[in-house]
């Protein structure tokens, strides 16, 4: 390889990371190797230090750059995903182009995954050598600066998304809030009381919904879904599909006469969790925002039955022009935004999957959401807790925790809210019916503020807590004297015996699951899901708000199960991050881009079909290919494909990568045979 690397002066810094690296890798030996064996490759200083990322560690580098005239820096430490920015910053401060620094990952890829010290040290040396060879071929680069659009897209109008939207709008920037249901509000709108304070969910949620609905900076797109996202941080173009409401949004006054007159009654599977009814034209609940009905073409007689329908809604609609439009079509709108916040929420675990608990088979087995609707004064039973017959109050109620959660057969995770939700429901049932309540739990998890106090209070109220995983809910008595009608079979692990508790009603505290389509949604936005289906945050501890895709943030349960305060906090945090981007006005992007050397391009057009971003075009007059730097995302596929070597990829050039390969193989390099 042509060597124009002779005049470079390289500094190598080996981090102990406390004992994280030094416990497995002989860091001194690695530093010595760099200092002595790589002297011929331009290494002029090599040091090891406890924490390179600390201020002193960084100053060490800065000082060497200034005093020893370093022209290249290698830091052997953790993954570049953690501290590349840190060390580039140090170089920049000392006047060295930040892209002349490289990291060698000897923590994640060596110390943490290997145990044999000698082997780990040898591997660390090879990696350092690879990084030195590579950095010698690095070119000084300038970050690409892109302007940030001031608008933000928030996906999901539950409590997390609402919080984000309101915070950004309050700061004076435009927000597009997209919600797939007819109204914003999310799951919280279904609840009655919230733990541990027992304030009414609607009382604290609806003011926020109303504020979002009327905010001059928030544009609601309900009954809509994001279909396509193009672009990159600061410059996203989003296509939103507006499903037909069959009602003119800007004419309808929300008077509700159409709903009143509609003769079709349908089971409400969405808002009322299957235990209430709605009309064929409906708003999901009274405080819906926007207060505009949707017509359900699957049940409206205009569409089904083939007789032209009753058209009662149209007849009685008082607006001019008539708000009902039976042939309304799907619409697509395009939004330009700089940042995106995904607050798409969760789905309830389908309790039918646990057959032995009887949900869907035994009438008086309910889900927590059904009970939640029953407790709600605006719900289908007007706040009364009753059996499936709609009138009898239960005298004995069993509440089963962890249904579908912490269970290898279903979901491994703890849904984090079920314990508190079950305790709250126990309280509400007792308060409303005076019933004897039994809670069956595996472990009580009441970690947040005032949670355990609430649990103590409900214990004092006389709710029984039985520790054990329920084996079965059955309606078959074991003998003539057994009085059910339902029996909860459980091993009481504290008393050390099997118990069979007769009850009238069983409530299954079903867990939280990722949205069924979370993988597809993640793909639309270019972010990844964990194997379980929750969106992956940028860093589990230090950045639970951003994602791997710049300009896309997550909030609420879409990122993992959490309660309302945590969702609100994360929603607000996402807003703060977005605002910080907006206020910066522009952002620096990694200057990893492909470019064509026209003199070398033979015009073969091999690369032309490879770019999914349409960055590559062929210039007919000059018979050469050109790459649009603004569209190029830097994947490097065209660089790898060019047979003439005419395309180069900054940051990941052929020279850099080939040199790194050679460097990594230093200890096994084959000596060419004499000819």
């Amino acid at each position, binding site marked *: 390889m042509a060597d124009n690397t002779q005049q470079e002066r390289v500094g190598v810094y080996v981090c102990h990371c406390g004992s994280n690296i030094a416990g497995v890798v002989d860091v001194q030996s690695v530093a010595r190797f760099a200092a002595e064996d790589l002297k011929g490759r331009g290494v002029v200083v090599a040091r090891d230090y406890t924490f390179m990322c600390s201020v002193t560690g960084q100053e060490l580098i800065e000082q060497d750059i200034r005093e020893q005239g370093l022209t290249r820096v290698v830091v052997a430490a953790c993954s*570049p995903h953690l501290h590349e920015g840190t060390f580039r910053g140090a170089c920049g401060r000392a006047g060295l182009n930040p892209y002349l620094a490289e990291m060698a*990952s000897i923590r994640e890829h060596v110390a943490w995954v290997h145990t044999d010290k000698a082997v780990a040290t040898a591997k660390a040396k090879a990696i350092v050598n690879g990084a030195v060879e590579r950095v010698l071929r690095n070119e000084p680069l300038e970050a690409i600066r892109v302007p940030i659009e001031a608008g933000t897209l928030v996906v999901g109008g539950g409590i997390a998304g609402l919080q984000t939207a309101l915070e950004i709008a309050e700061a004076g920037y435009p927000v597009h809030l997209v919600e797939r249901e007819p109204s914003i509000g999310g799951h919280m709108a279904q609840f009655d009381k919230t733990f541990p304070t027992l304030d009414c969910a609607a009382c604290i949620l609806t003011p926020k919904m109303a504020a979002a609905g009327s905010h001059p900076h928030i544009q609601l797109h309900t009954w809509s879904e994001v279909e396509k996202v193009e672009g990159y941080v600061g410059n996203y173009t989003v296509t939103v599909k507006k499903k037909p409401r069959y009602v003119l949004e800007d004419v309808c006054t929300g008077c509700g006469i159409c709903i009143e007159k509609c003769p079709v009654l349908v089971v409400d599977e969405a808002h009322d969790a299957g235990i209430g009814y709605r009309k064929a034209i409906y708003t999901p609940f009274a405080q819906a925002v926007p207060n505009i009905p949707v017509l359900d073409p699957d049940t409206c007689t205009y569409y089904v039955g083939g007789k032209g329908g009753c058209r009662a809604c149209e007849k009685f609609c008082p607006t001019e022009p008539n708000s009902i439009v039976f042939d309304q079509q799907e619409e697509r709108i395009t939004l330009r935004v700089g940042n995106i916040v995904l607050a798409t929420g969760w789905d309830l675990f389908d309790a039918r999957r646990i057959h032995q608990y009887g949900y869907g088979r035994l009438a008086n087995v309910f889900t927590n959401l059904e009970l939640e609707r029953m407790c709600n004064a605006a719900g289908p039973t007007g706040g009364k807790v009753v059996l499936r017959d709609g009138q009898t109050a239960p005298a004995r109620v069993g509440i089963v925790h962890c249904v579908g959660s912490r269970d290898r057969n279903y979901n491994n995770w703890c849904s984090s809210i079920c314990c508190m939700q079950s305790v709250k429901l126990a309280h509400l049932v007792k308060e409303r019916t005076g019933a004897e309540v039994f809670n069956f739990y595996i472990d009580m998890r009441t970690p947040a503020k005032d949670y355990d106090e609430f649990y103590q209070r409900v214990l004092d109220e006389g709710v029984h807590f039985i520790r054990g995983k329920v084996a079965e809910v059955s309606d078959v008595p074991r003998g003539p004297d057994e009085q059910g009608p339902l029996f909860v079979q459980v091993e009481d692990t504290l008393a050390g015996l099997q118990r069979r508790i007769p009850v009238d009603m069983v409530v299954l505290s079903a867990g939280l699951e990722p949205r069924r389509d979370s993988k597809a949604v993640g*793909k639309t936005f270019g972010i990844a899901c964990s194997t379980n289906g929750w969106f992956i945050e940028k860093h589990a501890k230090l950045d639970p708000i951003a994602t791997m895709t710049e300009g896309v943030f997550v909030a609420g349960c879409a990122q993992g199960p959490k309660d309302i305060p945590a969702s609100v906090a994360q929603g607000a945090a996402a807003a703060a991050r977005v605002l910080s981007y907006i206020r910066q006005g522009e952002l620096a992007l990694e200057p990893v881009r492909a470019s064509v050397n026209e003199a070398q391009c033979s015009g073969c057009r091999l690369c032309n079909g490879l770019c999914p971003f349409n960055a590559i075009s062929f210039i007919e007059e000059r018979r050469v290919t050109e790459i649009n730097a603004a569209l190029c995302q830097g994947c490097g596929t065209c660089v*790898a494909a060019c047979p003439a070597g005419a395309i180069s990829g900054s940051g*990941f050039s052929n020279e850099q990568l080939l040199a790194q*390969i050679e460097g990594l*193989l230093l200890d096994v390099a084959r000596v060419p045979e004499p000819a």
Partner: protein
Amino acid sequence: MSESAFEPVIIGFTCNWCSYRAADLAGTSRIKYPPNVRLIRVMCSGRIDPTFVLKALADGADGVMIAGCHPGECHYLEQNYKALRRHRLLQRTLAQFGIEPERVRLTWASAAEGARFAEEVGAMVDEVKKLGPLNWPTRPVPQSEAAAEVAP
């Protein structure tokens, strides 16, 4: 060299968005895997020029592992399919050179799959151990074998 004493050296190409992060996660989760793989980060598996693989083999590696995002999950939409095609072609070329195609393994690991990444490394190392050292370019290629590999 006896088979048990043979410790192959493998170059692993990982993409910035999924497989490199899977390797990071294996680290953070302290999952142990054999130390024979040395990683190179590229932005995408589509960046991997077959020349890199040949270079690694020629320079002393006994095998090359290419790891990208799962099909359909490439950060650049579909470039890992291009890596897949190149890998197929490359394996045929290698066979014609008399090199066992299994020495170049293509695999996928998402950013959440640290354990899978570690398993894949383990499997790759086992495979190459079975094949033995590459010893390229001095490796003798039996004529009949080479001819058989070329036949379609």
